[in-house]
């Protein structure tokens, strides 16, 4: 890392620069680059000006991912389906973990779909610099555009998987399974927002560390897999021994997964206090993550 902080890039779009003519005012500078940046300078306005880029990144990720594959976007469905089947067999049939009386298949699928969104966003965000090192070294644009585009493109994947999940839900309901969707459904946007915020916050913190310590890159991949067992993906919190419950509840993702599952399937609802805890946790981790991101992005080019 270099001496000094990041640059303060004040990119004020003056009317003159919008018109494409250089400003003739003697003391007006459109761009001032100097060291030391304020600790919490989100530059959201700048990110907003680059919204087209964010959407093009989303499109790129979507189009490029499944080019030259036979099944194409079907993979978005195959992945959670195979995972759900595996979980149903291993945890449902063999280990016989209780599912609060819900159909095992739907229970695991809800958990998998939600968890996949978080896990993918986290892993991909933490790889932002490594994946884009060449690009970042050559051109300036708000670096946050990349993680934000990751959140959005995975939201599309999530939507596809979610519709698939709803289809199974309808199928099970028609067959008379005891499913009770309830007003918690209205919380869906907030749950998604919390999850995206957590993924972005954690992702950027890991990102900041991986730029300095490469070993963490290996850790994150299998770490995320292990982390899944610390969240109620394959079990429900209420079925745990009382001693373990607080540990799992401390995980801010737990209440989100539980709330999600409860909203669409019924069963045991997490308390609103729990959800508030997750939301608060998200805000804190997001702020920390973005501050760290701003510190690192300015000079990461020199270290990677």
């Amino acid at each position, binding site marked *: 890392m270099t001496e000094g902080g990041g640059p303060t890039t004040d990119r004020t779009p003056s009317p003159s620069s919008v018109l494409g003519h*250089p400003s003739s005012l003697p003391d007006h500078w459109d*761009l001032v680059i100097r060291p030391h940046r304020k600790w919490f300078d989100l530059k959201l306005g700048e990110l907003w000006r680059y919204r087209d880029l964010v959407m093009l990144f989303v499109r790129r990720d979507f189009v490029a991912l499944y080019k030259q594959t036979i099944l194409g976007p079907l993979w978005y469905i195959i992945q959670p389906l195979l995972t759900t089947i595996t979980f149903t067999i291993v945890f449902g049939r063999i280990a016989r973990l209780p599912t609060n009386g819900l159909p095992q298949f739907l229970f695991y699928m809800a958990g998998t779909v939600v968890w996949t969104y978080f896990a993918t966003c986290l892993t991909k965000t933490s790889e932002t610099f490594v994946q884009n090192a060449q690009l970042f*070294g050559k*051109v300036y644009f708000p670096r946050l555009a990349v993680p934000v585009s990751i959140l959005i493109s995975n939201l599309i994947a999530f939507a596809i998987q979610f519709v698939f999940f709803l289809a199974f839900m309808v199928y099970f309901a028609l067959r008379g399974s005891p499913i009770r969707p309830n007003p918690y459904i209205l919380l869906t946007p907030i749950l998604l927002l919390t999850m995206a915020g957590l993924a972005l916050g954690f992702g950027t913190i890991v990102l900041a560390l991986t730029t*300095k310590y490469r070993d963490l890159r290996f850790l994150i991949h299998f770490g995320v897999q292990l982390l899944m067992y610390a969240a109620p993906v394959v079990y429900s919190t209420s079925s745990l021994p009382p001693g373990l419950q607080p540990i799992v509840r401390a995980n801010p993702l737990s209440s989100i997964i539980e709330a999600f599952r409860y909203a669409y399937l019924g069963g045991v609802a997490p308390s609103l206090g729990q959800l508030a805890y997750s939301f608060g946790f998200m805000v804190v981790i997001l702020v920390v993550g973005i501050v760290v991101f701003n510190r690192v992005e300015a000079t990461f080019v020199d270290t990677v």
Partner: protein
Amino acid sequence: MPSTVISVEHLSKSYRLGQIGTGRLVDDLKIWWAKARGKPNPLAKIGQQDLRRNDQEPRTKNHKPDNRDGEIIWALKDINFEVKQGEILGIIGRNGAGKSTLLKIMTGVTAPTSGQIKAKGRVASLLEVGTGFHPELTGRENIYLNGAILGMKKVEIARKFDEIVAFSEVEQFIDTPVKRYSSGMYVRLAFAVAAHLDPEILLVDEVLAVGDAAFQKKCLGKMGDVASGGRTVLFVSHNMTAVRGLCQRAVLLRDGRLVQSGVAADVIGNYLGEILNRGDATLLADRRDRQGSGVVKVTGMRVGTRTDPASGHWITGEDAVAEVDYACDGTNGLRNVVVAIGVRRLDQSPMLYLGSEVVRFNIDWIEGTGTFVCVIKRLPLESGRFSLNVDIEQNKVLADRVNAALVLDVAEGDYYGTGVVWPFSGFLCDYTWSHAKGVKPAASR
């Protein structure tokens, strides 16, 4: 009087080795633990060696003793200059002088350590065209993506789309993934996007090294247009002919400091003097500014005459000899090798290409180390100074290339064997004169 659009004030950029860390959490923790107990850094040496080895980034480029200040390396130190509106400013200097770091700071890619840059209007860069191109996407999709990366809005790109495609000359393939493009098409498309950015300030770094001659001409023309339209261009290049042709003013950087700023021709003269002294300073084998896969490397080069193959100079009209020593990487031999020497003027404009493939000298197999020898019969170069590039290809893949591997003097000689030497004739060749008396017959042409 045109106004100042870029003002660089006391700009410095340093890389502090100590702060980079070892790159391994465990080692950093060990150092931290030792510090906490008041013990010396247990890994001091290892840490530094690690840094050296992992270093491809700018921080090693400048590891000259005079550039080091304890553990701090100054890539740029106290740079000051101003650029007026509509000016094309050349930025020249040897590899590692800080040219690219300067442009990187200007684009906002990396932060300065102290000082500041002020600019009026939108700044856009052509730091290696085609960054952000995705091979799987079509030409059309990449135009939009690349345009957005460079800071254009979608509507803006849509408006200029046809113009961009026409400029790039790849209309037919616009819906083909760019991975199927030839490298020429790829570069043309990438440059076309960048050229249509219409920024007030354009930063150009060595893009002109790519593409065919006709396209390069087009690019230079576009840059001229940009400047004549009241926009400002900062042009970083090693191609002194291009700098001389385009720029009125130039600045010369050396080891992170600005050593000269002024009329382009003067600054270029100074720079050319500087690169002459460089050949002696570094051994060819130790040169780091090389390209290629490295399966075989040029380890040494000698020039001379038949009688003294290592004399270091050639003589006009006498047989000239150039020897290229190579060493293969590893113990495996290599098939299908091509070696070539490029003779260039000091401003890097090409004079002569001496390639083994051109004269169909087949090198089927090389192994270990050895020497290629090239002999030019009756050297047809005038006296003067030239620089030699050398490259080795293996299976049509570049294995090693060193530009300006050697600078040599060609001494005046009697090419025609007549005792008459006519300087400044451009080039020399065999010719004869004849003479017919009386009226020339009308039929003969």
